[in-house]
């Protein structure tokens, strides 16, 4: 499993990747964000979760800095004991949410991924 971000021809990075980046730039490379640590930008604990989602659900927006370029990601956090500015690392999880419990077609997307864990 990887956490692939796209690097575009203008040097910017996005997660997730898109067929076109800022100003129409084409992707030229992928970067596996799971190999890096990130800093917590903001976080929340959601107590009203939809079908198939753990309750409570700790979530954070984190920022990676890779070769001077920043890229953000959102994801579950392993604990509710977290602070803005804290360093976290991605840890793999086979199933972030129960496929088929919600409205989205299970085959339409992947359900494994990474949670963020304080370093």
């Amino acid at each position: 499993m990887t956490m692939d971000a796209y690097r575009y021809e203008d040097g910017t990075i996005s997660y997730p990747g898109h067929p076109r980046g800022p100003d129409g730039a084409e992707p030229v490379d992928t970067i596996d964000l799971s190999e890096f640590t990130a800093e917590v930008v903001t976080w929340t604990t959601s107590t009203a979760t939809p079908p198939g989602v753990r309750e409570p659900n700790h979530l954070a927006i984190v920022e990676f800095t890779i070769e001077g370029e920043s890229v953000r990601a959102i994801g579950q956090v392993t604990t509710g004991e977290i602070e803005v500015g804290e360093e976290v690392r991605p840890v793999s999880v086979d199933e972030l949410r129960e496929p088929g419990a919600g409205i989205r077609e299970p085959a339409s997307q992947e359900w494994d991924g990474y949670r963020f864990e304080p370093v």
Partner: protein
Amino acid sequence: MERVAVIGSSMTQFGQRDEWIVELLSEAGLACLDDAGVDASDVEHLYVSNMASGEFEGQTGAMNALAQDIDATPAYTQRVDQTSSSGGAGIYAAWQSVASGASEMTLLVGGEKMTHRTTGEATDVIASLTHPVEYKHGVTLPSFAGLTARHYLDRFDAPRESLGKVAVKNHKNGVDNPNAQFRKEVDLETVLESPIVADPLRLYDFCPITDGSAALLLCPESVAQEYADEYAVITGIDGATDTHVVHEREDPTVMGGVVESGEGAYEMSGREPDDIDVAELHDMFTILEFLQMEGLGFAEQGEAWELVEEGDTERDGELPINTSGGLKSKGHPLGASGVAQGVEIYEQLVGEAGPRQVEADVGLCCNVGGFGNCVITTIMEAAQ
């Protein structure tokens, strides 16, 4: 280009209703035609703003069903879906149909039937608008609000109480709206001690799940004068789109779609933020009222909370915001909400807002889809 007038409005009771989607749409559509004194046979275009009647109820093609039920066939019909901003997008579509000369009488009806679903199911239908990397983590619209609220409060050193005061204000306004879901004042202590939903936001920072419908009738200004002495004119309208993936935005406290659509509406109308007398903003979550106030130029970035603290956005303040009670108190039947914002501004401009009436010649409504993903801003003015 012909100026586009609004000559009629209606809104059903918002809340938990026994009726299903087509029945709710029919109720609002017929009431709107009655309000304007226009026969259904005169309707040339019929737009239905609705996000998810297929997902909520298993009923698609609601625009076709509505056309027959209100005897508006063979009018051209179209469903408009832009998630929570479907209503605003419907105003844009209806405005385009008249401004282009394609229709001389356009009925817009927005509606949603939601309360038969559990909170979790309804939340999931709404969250289905998210990107797969968001959805698989269980990210919901309320969780976006919690993430953004924490960032805003920390960055701008704003007191948590200021968000609570948005809820207190809008509940107070809703008391005087006979069609609001909640007609009950709440005090700040109740808001701040209510259960946490998405930390740091609590239950009273969020709008409820709602059934309801609202409608507006639009026509060229030259035609309006045949039907009404008092009417409003849409002088500015624009829509804009921000990133689908919310965390990819450069500044989490700026909604680009609000800024862009606001600038477009101001430019088209020749108005500025200082010209606006009353505004309806999309307060699905209390933090959204701050972000829209700032994006629309009513406050500098990071300072909207100060206007709320000073009472400027109260009904008797310098810029009354959400005199209807907002989504917070009035309710949020997704496809109806943007239309209902237009109904409130129209009624304020023609002097039909009853106990909620403020002095207003120019009004603005801002309808937000997703978490700022799609936005429509509309400026209406009382006809002179």
